[in-house]
């Protein structure tokens, strides 16, 4: 029987290589896979492209990756208040693609759902329209937004069963549930793992078909 439980964060991030693309779930600290973030920093890799709503504040979050200078490009909606990212941004050693939050999550969803893109009304007549195809539908203008996918997606869940079904805690679901559909390898850090059948099938948010690795890392 399928069993995607791995022993620890190091096993969850195994195989991540220089130059790959990584999605990191979370909004602020909610849904942030902190043990995974630490494990990635320990890999000694570099030149990652990171897709994340935020860029860390200054603690045990994505700040660590910027401090270690392992990120080449950040695709992000709100990299504000992120001292370590800002330092690296100022010296020009990290590239930023700024994406409105709703467009960011919809592009990730498109990547996971096999769509070639979506037409969004967001950004028309703004700087966010630059370089994008403008398409009129039914008299209204939209921008063609392209899908995002990643080599790895790292998210924080609450409970997972050994098949890989995942629930989240409260608002920690945010980008995690969508990113978990859009990467070649999806690794989920959870409070605890349970046997198949222990989760309510109506309340599973991320079905196991999307999940490749799960490990328990009790919340602090």
């Amino acid at each position, binding site marked *: 029987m399928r069993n995607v439980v791995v022993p620890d964060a190091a096993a969850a991030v195994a195989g991540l290589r220089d130059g790959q693309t990584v999605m990191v779930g979370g909004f602020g600290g*909610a849904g942030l896979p902190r043990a995974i973030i630490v494990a990635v920093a320990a890999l000694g890799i570099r030149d990652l492209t990171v897709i994340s709503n935020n860029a860390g504040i200054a603690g045990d979050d994505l700040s660590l990756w910027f401090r270690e200078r392992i990120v080449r490009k950040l695709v992000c909606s709100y990299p504000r208040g*992120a001292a370590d990212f800002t330092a690296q941004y100022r010296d020009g050693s990290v590239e*930023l693609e700024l994406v409105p*939050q709703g467009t960011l999550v919809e592009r990730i969803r498109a990547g996971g759902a096999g769509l070639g893109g979506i037409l969004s009304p967001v950004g*028309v007549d703004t*700087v966010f329209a630059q370089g994008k195809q403008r398409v009129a539908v039914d008299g209204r203008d939209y921008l063609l937004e392209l899908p995002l996918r990643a080599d790895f997606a790292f998210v924080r869940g609450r409970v997972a069963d050994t098949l890989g079904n995942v629930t989240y805690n409260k608002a920690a679901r945010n980008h995690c549930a969508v990113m978990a559909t859009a990467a070649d390898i999806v690794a989920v850090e959870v409070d605890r793992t349970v046997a198949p059948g222990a989760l309510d099938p109506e309340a599973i948010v991320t079905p196991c078909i999307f999940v490749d690795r799960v490990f328990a890392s009790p919340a602090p």
Partner: protein
Amino acid sequence: MNGLTRQGLARMVAAHLPRDSFVNLGIGAPTAVANHMAPDSGIILHSENGVLHMGAAPPPGEEDWDLINAGKAPITLAEGGAFFDSALAFAMMRGGHLDVAVLGAFQVSERGDLANWSTGRDEGEPPAIGGAIDLAVGAKSIWIMMEHVARDGAPRIVETCTFPLTAARVVARIFTTLAIVEVRPQGLVASALIEGASLADVQAVTGAPLAAADRIATIRPDGSVVP
């Protein structure tokens, strides 16, 4: 001509929100509107990080850092609240399901253009947009709350925004520390003015022509509005 305090402005906006409506309060000053909503308003607050029906802030020591609002402050969930992912949270916004979004602004133009994410002068600071733009494009009615003029005295209500736009032609109403201004097809209309000020007084600190509504209400110093 003394303007409203932040509290007064928040109280004025809260009193105008329709009963039982679905509302998103933007990060920053709009968040304070929640403190002034009547307990029986029936308003259901949305947060773009995946929460519907936010309750009050938790008592100190009872924070759950997986239960936060869009400003990343801890919240509680009201009875009948729900959690969902960001894709559905933004579908609610972009799909026109919110009745009102209350947002801060740097500038609003007379045709309703909104500039609220960047002053275009952030040298060396990385830009950040978050969900403001999705709210501005998607909610059924966009209300702005802001100081009537900038810190340097420059008008925030202008003929044409000079700061980078968040969205074009989206603002419906502007609540400022001095006035309530409706954005109409024919231009801006002042429907309420701060006590003691004339339309000419407010026009003098406004960068676009203000017409007078048929009846102009009076804004009291506490933020209450009397016809």
